[in-house]
């Protein structure tokens, strides 16, 4: 008999397998690097290319994060606090760019302005695509602050702006900071935009040295540095988010913040600014895409190729998502039901994929399959495994939330009514959390369909997916022919974004005040 609060051995064992799978790419990468010996590592690290790559990546992160904060925070204020016409529309438009993979956005801009290239082009696209990471949580935070805070500040002698700035805004900063760290992580891991604009950031340099294939060690060394930077950002994000969680005292606010009336001049300015942002983030890519699409139809569109690519994307991603859901189940249950130190460690290790850019997982699994498991080299299985590792955090999160919402009393009651432990679990907890787990799986499926770098590196020769087809056509400047693939990808990406915006709006409407769900779901789930 185990002590109360201690997890069943089987659950621990299964979670151990999951953690092992999740950590394999990282561990193998480290082994590869260490194998090369200290001299090789040192020479790779000290090459000027390593330094310039690091500087370029960090510059890109700083510029994009700064732009997202400078534009995103005022936009969040408008969405949360100002009385505006068509408020619902602006909120959806501000969140929507999240659904566009960076390489689709980059392709669309290049197709319209073929001269676009380099650091500032990549910074522009990455800012447009990742700004929702700042806007959404900051808006939610500003909405959730108890209006009594500002009222008290007014009574204590502060004018409206001073009351907002000193009593309310400090409570929204952690949300904005956590969001901007996610932006940083996105920029650091992004492959599509930097590759298409030819910016020598980590991901592109790793990919090109892998393609050149004579210098795998230096690629691996760069990958380790990249993972280290990503881990720092994730750690910082956790810290900041943990602080906000500790700030929640009492039962939360009973009232919504009152909206501010703008002068008509200010209102016009606000609407113009929001419109401008929507044009850059959504309008230009859509216009370019549709124009190229109509152009492309002058040549016959190969529908069979498009259908094959879609089916391939779907098939491989389905495999990956099933694998992810299966692996996530044990860890998700463990994390939701047993908060012990070992469960926390297993959960944290299983989240490795969060810190691993697609390029890194791709690189590691290519080497691993080549050296250790040649039978898996460039197979669908290897690709599905990469998806599972990359998106395991999404799946664990969904499982954990779904299981956590089922009261443990149900399972215990089933036990007292004569069910054995496994049947009781299947008939209550599992049965009730199944919709949530399945939704998580669907999300992994749709996210995996957009994945580019790992797919490029791991796919079997001849297996073309939507992402690789768009990539190869863009590379040879066949913009018209690429358009149908881009459009299909946007459709795939828009489904979860739309579902989640709808769901979180509904949740925030029904549960006035409890803002946790709308603040977090779209971020932890749509992105990537």
């Amino acid at each position, binding site marked *: 008999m185990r002590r109360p609060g201690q997890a069943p051995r089987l659950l621990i064992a299964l979670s151990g397998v999951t953690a092992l799978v999740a950590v394999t790419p990282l561990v193998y990468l480290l082994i590869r690097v260490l194998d090369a010996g200290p001299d090789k590592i040192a020479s790779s690290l000290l090459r000027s290319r390593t330094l310039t790559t690091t500087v370029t990546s960090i510059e890109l992160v700083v510029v994009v994060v700064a732009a997202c904060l400078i534009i995103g925070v005022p936009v969040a204020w408008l969405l949360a606090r100002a009385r505006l016409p068509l408020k619902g529309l602006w909120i959806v438009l501000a969140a929507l760019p999240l659904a566009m993979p960076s390489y689709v956005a980059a392709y669309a801009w290049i197709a319209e302005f073929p001269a676009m290239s380099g650091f500032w082009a990549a910074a522009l696209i990455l800012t447009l695509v990742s700004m929702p990471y700042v806007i959404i949580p900051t808006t939610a935070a500003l909405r959730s602050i108890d209006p009594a805070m500002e009222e008290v500040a007014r009574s204590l*002698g502060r*004018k409206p702006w001073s*009351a907002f700035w000193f009593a309310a805004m400090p409570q929204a900063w952690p949300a904005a900071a956590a969001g901007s760290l996610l932006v940083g992580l996105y920029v650091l891991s992004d492959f599509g935009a930097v590759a298409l604009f030819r910016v020598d950031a980590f991901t592109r340099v790793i990919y090109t040295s892998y393609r050149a294939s004579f210098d795998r060690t230096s690629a691996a060394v760069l990958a380790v540095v990249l993972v280290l930077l990503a881990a720092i950002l994730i750690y910082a994000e956790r810290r900041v988010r943990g602080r906000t969680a500790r700030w929640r005292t009492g039962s939360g606010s009973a009232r919504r913040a009152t909206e501010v009336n703008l002068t008509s001049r200010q209102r016009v300015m606000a609407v113009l600014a929001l419109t401008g942002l929507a044009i850059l983030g959504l309008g230009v890519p859509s216009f370019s895409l549709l124009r190229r699409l109509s152009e492309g139809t002058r040549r016959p569109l190969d529908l069979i190729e498009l259908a094959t690519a879609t089916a391939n994307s779907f098939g491989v991603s389905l495999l990956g998502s099933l694998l992810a859901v299966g692996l996530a189940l044990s860890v998700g249950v463990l994390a939701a039901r047993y908060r012990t130190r070992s469960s926390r460690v297993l959960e944290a290790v299983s989240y490795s994929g969060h810190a691993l850019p697609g390029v890194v997982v791709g690189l590691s699994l290519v080497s691993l399959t080549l050296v250790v498991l040649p039978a898996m080299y460039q197979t669908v299985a290897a690709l599905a495994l990469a998806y599972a590792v990359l998106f395991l955090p999404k799946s664990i999160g969904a499982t954990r939330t779904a299981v956590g919402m089922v009261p443990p009393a149900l399972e215990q009651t089933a036990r007292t009514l004569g069910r054995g432990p496994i049947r009781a679990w299947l008939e209550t907890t599992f049965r009730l959390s199944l919709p949530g787990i399945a939704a998580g799986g669907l999300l992994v499926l749709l996210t995996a369909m957009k994945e580019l770098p790992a797919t490029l590196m791991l796919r079997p020769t001849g297996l073309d997916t939507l992402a690789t087809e768009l990539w190869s056509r863009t590379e040879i400047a066949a913009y018209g022919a690429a358009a149908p693939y881009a459009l299909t990808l946007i459709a795939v990406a828009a489904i979860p974004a739309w579902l989640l915006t709808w769901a979180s709006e509904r949740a925030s409407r029904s549960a006035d005040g409890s803002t946790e769900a709308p603040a977090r779901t779209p971020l932890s789930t749509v992105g990537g």
Partner: protein
Amino acid sequence: MIAVGVSALEAGYGSIPVLFDLNLQVPSGLFLAVLGTSGSGKTTLLRALAGFIRPTSGSITFGDTVVAGPASWVPPESRRVGIVPQEGALFPHLDVYGNVAFGLRGQPRIEERVAEVLELVGLAGRSKSRPQELSGGQMQRVALARALAPRPDVLLLDEPFSALDAGLRQRVRHEVRSLLSSLGTTSILVTHDQEEALSIADRVAIVRHGQIIQNDTPARLYEAPADLETARFIGAVVELPATRVDDATVMSALGLTEIEVVGAPARDGVLTLRPEQLVIVDEQRVGSATRAEGAAGRVHAASYHGHDTVITVTLDTGEHVDVRIPGLVPSITGDRVHVLATGRGRLYPTPRAYGQ
């Protein structure tokens, strides 16, 4: 110390008025409780006094200054009002010191004043604590210190004790009460808890449907509620149909009872008594001399509350009456008893929907 005056106030949210023609005078230095159920308009009144909402008509004066009226408007930051919101609403990003010093910006000797007010609320030495580290009672004390620090003319308290559990609530509110009376700050407390209002305020104003129904001392309010609904709201009440015998006497199932005459209806109505005004006498012990007094009945149930026991008696005439007796009463359920009324009752007009 200044007096607060509210006259013909109409206020609400958007186009929905919540307060209608509300009039209220709070003498300088007084502790007033505004008592009402949720939706009565008591919180709206508080928000209008603080300046968080603008009245649609009527006026509010603080001392000689019209802070809200047809031609004038003083914003909240210039009203010299302190507010203690529900659950404290402490700034979570600031420590205790930062919270208390928030309203002192630009003033000399901030540190001294913060220490002084924290001392006053019994939290000296806690200035480095973060709000999350405080208990519910401590949070309310910090909220009070924060409100008092800039020496407000008027202090507004919005159900500040409702989030505390029973024992703590009593202690904190009596501490707050004695602190405020020693400072002499004009204070207005909004609450739905009649026991709280009666036990700590100098005067209690009953708000219902956006109007002040009665504004009296706690004792007068309990003894002489303005109407039947107020009588029911302020504590338990025994109600019996009654007929007027003469100016000061009515006849009911309990026999002849003296009443207070003010505002009573000309003839029939509802006699009200407080349960502690009734006395139970065991039937065997009722001598022949007292047999004519009171009403005979049988004990239906008894519920024990610690400080007292409430005994429900079904009178032979069919009515139920509650009798409150201090302390524990041995089980007498089913016994035959006599119920006597002591002291004076009140007669109110019979409400329209009466007698179920």
